[in-house]
């Protein structure tokens, strides 16, 4: 009896999971949705851009796949039906370009900077970046394959050559790394939950909600990186016209304003 119940439960649950993975289609005759594969750090900004796009282009729905850029590149390589690819660094866009996965020259559309976040409760009493080299700090970075992970390591190296920082700052700080996360949002949540003492993330990750949970330590501009985000249309995109329109929106003054509102730096503001 209750074995039967249990089976039913498992069956229903697995069905639910299966259904959950099937993309929810609207009416059969509606236009193909636009599939945008974008770096996890763009999640908030692009979600708003997506809403804007749907207002402008009635009948076209935008669907996002936010993940680490390295993951998106691999998915597109394996034949995912993406229309647009927006990467958090040139490495993974180059990777896609070399394999002929994107159309035309990728366009840089926004910049980002790194900051360090610590939980509001600040259990390790980190007041300045030098404190990250103290023994026993639980520092969380993204893995080296993730754009922000590589940027973080560059910043740490830069800091060890910066005045006011010890020469062995980099090795000591890297020794404090307790986890290498798969994307930047996982770094944010580990700090937000108070499990990690500190983490390197993008400035754009500090949404108003996140700000309630974390304290932000700025990285001096001299040691910071300028993360440049390229965007491109994917080859054999199922919805090429919509992809083009989406790129236009991202690069338009209005699109750039949206990005700026989410802590990203528009191209113009960051000119040489």
């Amino acid at each position: 009896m209750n074995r039967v119940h249990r089976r039913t439960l498992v069956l229903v649950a697995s069905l639910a999971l299966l259904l959950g993975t099937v993309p929810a289609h609207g009416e059969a005759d509606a236009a193909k949705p636009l599939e945008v594969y974008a770096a996890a750090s763009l999640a908030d900004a692009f979600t708003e851009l997506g809403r804007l796009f749907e207002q402008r282009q009635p009948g076209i729905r935008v669907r996002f796949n936010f993940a680490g850029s390295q993951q998106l590149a691999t998915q597109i390589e394996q034949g995912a039906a993406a229309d647009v690819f927006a990467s958090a660094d040139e490495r993974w866009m180059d990777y896609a370009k070399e394999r002929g996965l994107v159309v035309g020259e990728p366009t840089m559309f926004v910049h980002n900077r790194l900051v360090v976040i610590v939980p509001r409760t600040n259990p390790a009493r980190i007041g300045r970046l030098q404190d990250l080299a103290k023994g026993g700090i639980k520092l969380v970075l993204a893995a080296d394959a993730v754009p922000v992970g590589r940027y973080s390591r560059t910043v740490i190296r830069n800091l060890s050559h910066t005045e006011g920082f010890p020469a062995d700052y980099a090795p000591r700080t890297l020794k404090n790394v307790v986890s290498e996360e798969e994307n930047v949002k996982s770094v944010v949540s580990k700090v937000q939950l108070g499990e990690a003492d500190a983490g390197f993330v993008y400035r754009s990750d500090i949404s108003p909600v996140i700000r309630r949970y974390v304290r932000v330590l700025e990285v001096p501009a001299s040691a910071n990186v300028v993360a440049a985000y390229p965007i491109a249309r994917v080859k054999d995109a199922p919805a090429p016209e919509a992809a083009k329109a989406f790129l236009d929106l991202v690069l338009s003054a209005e699109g750039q304003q949206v990005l700026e509102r989410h802590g990203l730096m528009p191209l113009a503001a960051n000119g040489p």
Partner: protein
Amino acid sequence: MAEVAVRSLRPSLARFGVLAASVLLLGFLALPFIGLLLRVSAGEVLARLARPVVIDALRLSFITSVAATAVVVVLGIPVAWLLATREFPGKRVVEVLVDLPVVLPPTVAGFALLMAFGRAGLGGRALAALGISLPFTTLGVVVAQVFMAVPFMVGPARASFASLDRKLLDAAATLRAREAFTFFHVALPLALPGLLAGVAMSGARALGEFGATITFAGNLPGTTQTMPLAVYVALQSDLDAAVALSVLLLVMAFGLLLGLRSAPAGSFWGRGDARAQGH
């Protein structure tokens, strides 16, 4: 039930149906594995094996999954016994609780574990007072694996206990054997096939555990990066390495299940399986 249906059909048709279903299902199961195996040579797998990251991951996977299985066995078998032999209020809730990790997406489980045993979690503060911290530690990996593996031990063990001949247990009782004595000297040996099935399944689940581990314990080579995590990380940067690691994991899991299946007294598994499946 299946037998009745089969008998009422024309034998040839039924046989064809069974054959077709078997070929379809087995092909579906085998194809991904074959695909993996075709992508790399044995030499390549062995070459990757020698990398420190892989050795670390292998060692860590071995230690943590053995530890997790041991915990699951020691704590799971008494619970299985309880569920198989007793009625008590709230039993349904206990049953669901034990089954829950099967249904829960592992990432959710990992997040829930953080809420419970994280630094700011309910039990985490108590642990911290004892100087124990689970997130980002090898111990945390074991905790995540135990959480996910429990149902795979309790399920078969319980079914196995429940299918024991009551008369044997009653006979022991009439001889005034204490329950503990009956449990260790009558129930445990008789239920062994089902218990071993539980050990194999929960061990395999612990070995393959990914989502709860990366969410709860994090990902650091040598400390928390088990084989599945190493595969995942490699998948994002070095596809060939990922394939080699996957093959390795596949061979290990296959060996584990095959070994336990053919280990002692050949016939036990068939019986244990039939019991574990229930009717």
